[in-house]
């Protein structure tokens, strides 16, 4: 009888265990917030294809393109795909609007596009304030809006600053500053040009860029009653391979102290831009994503983010990944062509052993993130938005 009872106990346990068995692991695939539309305004790191491709390593599988960070965010708001509103027609050198698309970001976009040599105007799609002015008309309060800007402005500023070593260079520098600051202010700050006064003027310019971006966001987006706005501030561009090369050249010519001084100055301007942007948006409902801090965190602890190389661009490592003019830049067709997931995995460079080597690199070319870094930025933004209760 004892055996019978133990069998009964065992059977009841088995029934209870079986009753719960069979359910497998899974996921809720319904986003917490479903946005009718995600609108994007900014530059190359947010450009979904104005020039026919994204400024990162291309996916060899067109059905599964790599997501850049605004696309990672958009997907989690239930918008699986972004496409470019402005589409560049190279033959005519014009932008053709596609009103079915909601990403207004254009590679090369500047807050103050008057410093953009090929198209110095703030009424062209390279102007981020122009992008917002165009997109503003169709903004709905339930849209999610993501904006970035400032990186190319700082690159222009730094280039002109480094060239301000001759009277002509100083003149060009002051002209650039004068596109945003009153020329009298520029002259007053610079006085008799010194490294310090030239740098102080750059700081004032960077502040003005931040103020301009904030004012445009308020006028074109906040004023439309949009409740979910993300503004991505400017990362430290001195950590990009492009600026590391520039700093290397400065060090070679003038010593490492001078190189460190330039890097410190650019960082100070970036922080001035970001501070004035934050100040300009204070009191609004805008979520400012601090890409500067996130970038510094990734740079300081790359291993924590599964990155093995944060200094060398991945594209030049494969044949054709560097253009005929020696540039590893994704604005050159050859680089874009060569720099795709299939070619990268097939051509494992010296020093690497895995076909996935490029998935742990931070930079695809001199200035632009790999899909891996895009994903890290996207999920960091998502984390902030989840803490805000949006995702």
């Amino acid at each position, binding site marked *: *009888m*004892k055996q*019978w*009872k133990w069998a009964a*106990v065992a059977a*009841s*346990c088995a029934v*209870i*265990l079986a*009753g*719960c*068995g069979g*359910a*497998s*692991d*899974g*996921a*809720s*695939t*319904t*986003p*917490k917030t479903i946005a009718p539309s995600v609108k994007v305004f900014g530059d190359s790191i947010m450009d979904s294809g104005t020039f026919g491709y994204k400024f990162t390593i291309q996916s060899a599988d067109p059905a599964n393109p790599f*997501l850049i960070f605004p696309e*990672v965010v958009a*997907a*989690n708001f*239930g918008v*699986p795909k972004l496409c470019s509103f402005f589409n560049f027609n190279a033959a005519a050198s014009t932008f053709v609007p596609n009103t079915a698309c909601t990403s207004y970001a254009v590679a090369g976009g500047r807050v103050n596009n008057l410093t953009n040599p090929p198209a110095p105007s703030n009424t062209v799609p390279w102007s981020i304030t122009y992008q917002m002015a165009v997109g503003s008309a169709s903004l709905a309060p339930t849209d999610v809006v993501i904006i970035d800007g400032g990186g190319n402005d700082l690159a222009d500023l730094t280039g002109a600053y480094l060239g301000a070593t001759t009277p002509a260079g100083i003149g060009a520098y002051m002209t650039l500053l004068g596109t945003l600051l009153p020329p009298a202010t520029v002259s007053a700050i610079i006085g008799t040009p010194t490294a310090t006064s030239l740098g102080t003027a750059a700081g004032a310019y960077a502040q003005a860029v931040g103020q301009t971006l904030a004012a445009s966001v308020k006028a074109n987006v906040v004023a439309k009653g949009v409740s979910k706005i993300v503004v991505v501030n400017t990362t430290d561009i001195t950590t990009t391979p492009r600026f590391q090369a520039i700093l290397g050249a400065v060090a070679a010519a003038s010593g490492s102290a001078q190189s460190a001084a330039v890097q410190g100055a650019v960082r100070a301007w970036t922080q001035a831009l970001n501070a004035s942007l934050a100040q300009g948006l204070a009191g609004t409902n805008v979520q400012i994503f601090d890409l500067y801090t996130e970038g510094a965190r990734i740079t300081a*602890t790359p*291993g*924590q*983010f*599964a*990155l093995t190389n944060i200094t060398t661009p991945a594209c030049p490592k494969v044949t054709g990944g560097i253009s005929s003019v020696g540039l590893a830049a994704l604005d050159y067709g050859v680089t874009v062509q060569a720099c795709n997931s299939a070619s990268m995995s097939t051509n494992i460079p010296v020093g690497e052993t895995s076909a996935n080597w490029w998935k742990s690199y931070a930079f695809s070319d001199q200035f632009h993130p790999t899909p891996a870094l895009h*994903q*890290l930025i*996207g*999920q*960091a933004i*998502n*984390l902030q*938005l*989840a*803490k805000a*209760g949006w*995702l």
Partner: protein
Amino acid sequence: MKNTVKFLLIPAILACAAAAQAQTAGTWMVRGGGTTITPNVSSGDLTAPSLAGTKASVGSSSRLSGGITYMVDNNFSVDVPLAVPFQHDISGDGAIAGVGKIADVKALPATLLAQWRFMDANSAFRPYVGLGITYAAFYAARSTSTLTAISGGTPSNPTTLTIDSKWAGTVQLGASFAIDKRWFVDASYTYTPLSTTTKLSTGQTQDIKLDPSSFSLAIGYKF
């Protein structure tokens, strides 16, 4: 013989046809009630790639429960607690504190306890201590869209998780209070030092100490 009598009486349980019985050798007891499991979580960090200090917390769960006890002799008993599956919410903690719920998981702890019951077999009040082994089965882990978002996934490529099922020891403190010759109230507290590992579909893992405490209250019947 005694066992045979009890066996014959089993169908009569619901009719409450019963003879006087204490917690003596050979006694069978069944009970039904409720159990709350409260994990005492100490979370490790999610492995790379992740934000440093990414941790998780695990909430408590209450369910209908019961159990079967057999008195091997007047003091020593063997007990099998039973319960409908528990469901625990998992939330972000540490660097991701504030994101809310990131997953839930069903848990079914299967425990076998050896108990020592103090006092006389006929005492109305019998405290006991127990020592046993638990197999904590974790299954049907379901991630939320929040976990997918913060781990770089998308709704079409969601991040899922699995939680390893584990063996662990269990200690118990409890007492039974006889209401009458058949019915009793049983209250017990168990503690299970249990560690497990969570694995994300994105490749990261997280070691987590759950060390659950559970409190059960039940009404039982001796036969």
